[in-house]
């Protein structure tokens, strides 16, 4: 038994323990806090699996931004927490559910223990064109060179999700701004935090995007940090979002996917097929797409947390 193995076992047990807490806790608020802790622990697990890019994504999006989203939701749903108590599930049904879940887990464990040897891999195929793209981080190369279609569709999915969230606004609230339905407290400690942290966070987010082509990092992680800074600014009341009808805001949102699409279509002219980068210019094109996508993605992630446009509750203070 080496120490790495013991550490990973402890980490796996801790993850499972927190997961049990998330499912089992009586109140929603502790469950959400547990979920954020869960996300951070899982990102350490990704480090143990030698996937720093995924670890950064999990910490920033899986734990951080999702956590903020769920905390906002808990706060908004808070009042009904007394009402929605556990209904009695019939004993037989409960047993059946447990049986089903145990069967699913047992089946998956059996699969894990009988993985084929040697493991199938695309690593060598993925490495082959790495040289020609000029990007040193293989994960970034996968995301923007030969699986660029996935990434393009993914940004469109995020955009569509945001359109879906906005479409849930009440008719009377349509011309308002997306806010958490919360009016910031002027002069609170959050204002200081926002003033200290936002400059550092913005630099860090941009660095994360920039370094992503050669080292762990990338546009999603960087955009998530930028989005987090935006959310902090909104909560502290030091930044504001324009109304969703604002044309500039909308153009900024579609800028990233649009640049991606146009550059992809140019592939028809230069090489002959969609999303093909002209030889020799791959790195430049990839960096261009990352730079164009980052502000759009950051805005989308932040606005997804902020929710549909909403009339601020009139505060009398």
């Amino acid at each position, binding site marked *: 038994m080496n120490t790495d193995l013991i550490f990973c076992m402890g980490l796996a047990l801790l993850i499972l323990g927190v997961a049990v807490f998330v499912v089992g806790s009586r109140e929603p608020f502790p469950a959400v806090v547990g979920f954020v802790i869960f996300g951070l622990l899982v990102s350490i697990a990704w480090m143990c699996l030698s996937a720093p890019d995924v670890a950064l994504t999990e910490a920033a999006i899986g734990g951080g931004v999702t956590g903020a989203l769920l905390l906002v939701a808990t706060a908004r749903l808070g009042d009904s927490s007394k009402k929605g108590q556990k209904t009695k599930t019939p004993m037989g049904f409960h047993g059946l559910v447990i049986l089903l879940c145990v069967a699913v887990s047992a089946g998956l464990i059996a699969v894990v223990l009988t993985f084929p040897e040697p493991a199938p891999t695309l690593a060598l195929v993925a490495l082959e064109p790495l040289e020609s793209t000029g990007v040193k981080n293989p994960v970034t190369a996968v995301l923007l060179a030969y699986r660029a279609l996935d990434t393009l569709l993914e940004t469109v999915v995020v955009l569509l999700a945001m359109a879906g969230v906005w479409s849930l606004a009440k008719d009377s609230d349509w011309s308002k701004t997306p806010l958490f339905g919360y009016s910031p407290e002027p002069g*609170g*400690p*959050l204002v*200081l*935090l926002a003033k*200290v*942290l936002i400059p*550092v966070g913005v630099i860090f987010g941009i660095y994360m995007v920039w370094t992503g082509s050669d080292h762990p990092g990338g546009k999603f992680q960087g955009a998530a940090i930028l989005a987090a800074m935006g959310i902090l600014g909104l909560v502290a009341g030091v930044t504001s979002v324009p109304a969703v009808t604002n044309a500039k805001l909308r153009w900024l949102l579609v800028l990233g996917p649009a640049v991606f699409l146009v550059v992809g279509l140019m592939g028809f002219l230069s090489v002959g097929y969609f999303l093909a980068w002209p030889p020799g210019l791959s790195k430049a094109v990839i960096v261009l797409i990352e730079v164009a996508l980052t502000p759009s993605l950051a805005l989308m992630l932040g606005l997804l947390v902020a929710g549909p446009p909403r009339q601020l509750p009139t505060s009398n203070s």
Partner: protein
Amino acid sequence: MSTVLDLLTIVFVSVGVFFFVAGTVGLLRFPDTLTRLHALTKADNLGLGLIVIGLLPRVDSPQDALKLILVWALVLVASSNSSQLIARKVRREES
């Protein structure tokens, strides 16, 4: 020289871990929110600081050292702010 540095690391990290354990015990044992906050922030900030000091002799480059210190500074800013927010909330509910 390296033995001295190793010893330094062991001592600082051990003391740091001790503060973490003490803070956790305080978090679990103290009676109300404010004392629990006290246990958490004092012990964890100091604990993390000591661990960072303990790890400094082991970094490869000055950049890595700066990153470690930055991590500590960011945790300090975040935890002092969140304690402020929690404490304000407690006061508002009491009054």
